[in-house]
């Protein structure tokens, strides 16, 4: 990160020969080395559980030993079919939640930025507030709301795919809103004015000018929304009373509660693989900073 501007080069020229004392040099060494040791320890701490899951997954069932005495892929082969089904349920819920949320949120972001809405601040803070309400409280409230709704409407939202998607949409909307909101606010209207001035309809302007400018921010927001929904346990656990038809994290969660088996580790290792792949593709597609920047 050191930039080679003229100033920083000038620094290195020995204009006045300053010599740091012995103590100062030693303390510098100690400081640099202790920083390295601390960082190394934290990095080890961060990757330890990942390594332990991946390592244990290569055991021969029913052994659970890390490091495994014999490497084997048996635990991967023994992953039950309904777990793959759960994996696809997770994918479907995450795609649906990210999609529905984008469809609802992007127009609303335009309205908030450009519409001179009365009570804009209030609306904005309400749209962000699912982040502030703890997920467990969100789960309890939506669960009880579905119970009440089922009592009134007669059909059961609970354990249904739609109910899950609705809850996940609520969960990811604040992330999509704040990412897209920032991009729209910094969007120069001159581009769109030029497009309209050249005779394009407003629909065409939106598709050919506005949307391409928004695309990087929208991609980052959608990936983030997808990951958050895909990893979610709390909402899915509360809102799918029938664990058999639930998402992968919930299936794994319930399996851990029941018994320990390297098959669980194999499935968990696969989810780690997915998250590593997502991290890499984010880095390639939009850069890691764009997912975290607000």
């Amino acid at each position, binding site marked *: 990160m050191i930039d080679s501007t003229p100033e920083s080069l000038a620094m290195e020229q020995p204009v006045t020969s300053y010599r740091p004392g012995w103590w*100062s040099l030693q303390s510098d060494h100690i400081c640099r080395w202790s920083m390295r040791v601390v960082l190394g320890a934290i990095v080890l701490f961060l990757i330890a*559980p990942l390594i332990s899951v991946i390592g244990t997954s290569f055991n021969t069932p029913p052994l659970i030993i890390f490091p495994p005495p014999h490497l084997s892929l048996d635990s991967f082969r023994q992953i039950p079919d309904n777990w793959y089904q759960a994996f696809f349920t997770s994918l479907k819920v995450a795609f649906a939640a990210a999609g529905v949320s984008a469809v609802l949120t992007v127009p609303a972001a335009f309205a908030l930025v450009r*519409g001179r809405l009365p009570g804009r601040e209030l609306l904005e803070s309400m749209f962000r507030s699912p982040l502030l309400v703890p997920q467990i*409280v969100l789960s309890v409230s939506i669960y*009880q709301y579905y119970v009440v709704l089922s009592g009134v409407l007669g059909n059961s939202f609970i354990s249904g795919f739609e109910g899950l998607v609705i809850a996940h*949409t609520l969960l990811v*909307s604040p992330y999509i809103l704040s990412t897209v909101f920032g991009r729209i606010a910094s969007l120069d209207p001159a581009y769109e004015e030029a497009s309209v001035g050249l005779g394009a309809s407003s629909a065409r302007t939106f598709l050919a000018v506005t949307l391409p400018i928004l695309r990087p921010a929208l991609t980052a927001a959608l990936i983030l929304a997808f990951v958050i929904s895909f990893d979610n346990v709390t909402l899915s656990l509360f809102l799918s009373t029938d664990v058999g038809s639930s998402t992968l994290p919930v299936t794994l969660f319930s399996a851990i*509660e029941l018994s320990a088996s390297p098959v669980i580790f194999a499935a968990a290792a696969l*989810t780690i693989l997915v998250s590593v792949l997502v*991290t890499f593709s984010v880095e390639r597609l939009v850069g890691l900073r764009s997912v975290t920047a607000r």
Partner: protein
Amino acid sequence: MNGRHWQPWVVPLLLFYVVFFLFPQLVFLAVSALKYTGPGQIGHNVTVENYNAILHNAYFHRAIINTLELSALTAIVSALFGLPLAYTIVHGGRRGKYLFALIIGVMFSSAVALALGWETLLAPAGGVNGLLLALGVVNHPLPLASNFTSIVIGSIHGAIPIATLGILPACEAVTVRQLEVSTGLGASSWRTFWSIILPQTYRSVCSIGVVIFAITTSIFTTPAILGGGRVALVSLAIYQQLLTLFDYPKSAALAAVLIIIMLLITVLARMFVRSGASQPGVVKP
């Protein structure tokens, strides 16, 4: 392109929020004040019984105290770990880039997988105890699994990426020029840290600590797996009341208590840490 014709576009999201966010919040607050008439039922009489039961029950007291303790430990440790990480990501060149990828990778990993990893590592015959025994630090395996310690470790691990991302902007405010000037004027690395880096980042470290405290009060997945059912926490008690005992009013009241705790902590902490708290980019409870 500016003006009123954009206004209607807010309606779909607004309706969605009113129907599936505001109504549920009102329903659960209302339920928390209704009489418990049996599993899976909600009575019609208004009562403070549910809140009273929470106030006068030793198990719930334990749960609240454990929750506060866990949140405080997690907030302090992860904020302290976050500073060197964030600093290295910004000023560490290539190493910083890899570190950033690691942080994002951990953040994107499922909490279930991470908790599973810690469960095996912290078991009596697991990696951590094996290492400590081999190094001769301890003679007997430490009781690290299925207790409060394992929950603390797991929740700190999960909070470190959030802390790091939250401190990142403050570390970016420390410019390369400032560091060069400090070193050029003969300051040691310690001196540079105390006089240049820390003054510009400590506010951010404190405020991210508050944010993590608030988030951790409601952490569920990690303690549910790592606690082994032996540690009382408010979030676990809510789950138990709702999905094991089907006591809807009690679970709603507990949820309300959790929100009150969270708000109280945040307000109190804000009084001590005055700053434009930078919200973290990503919050993953």
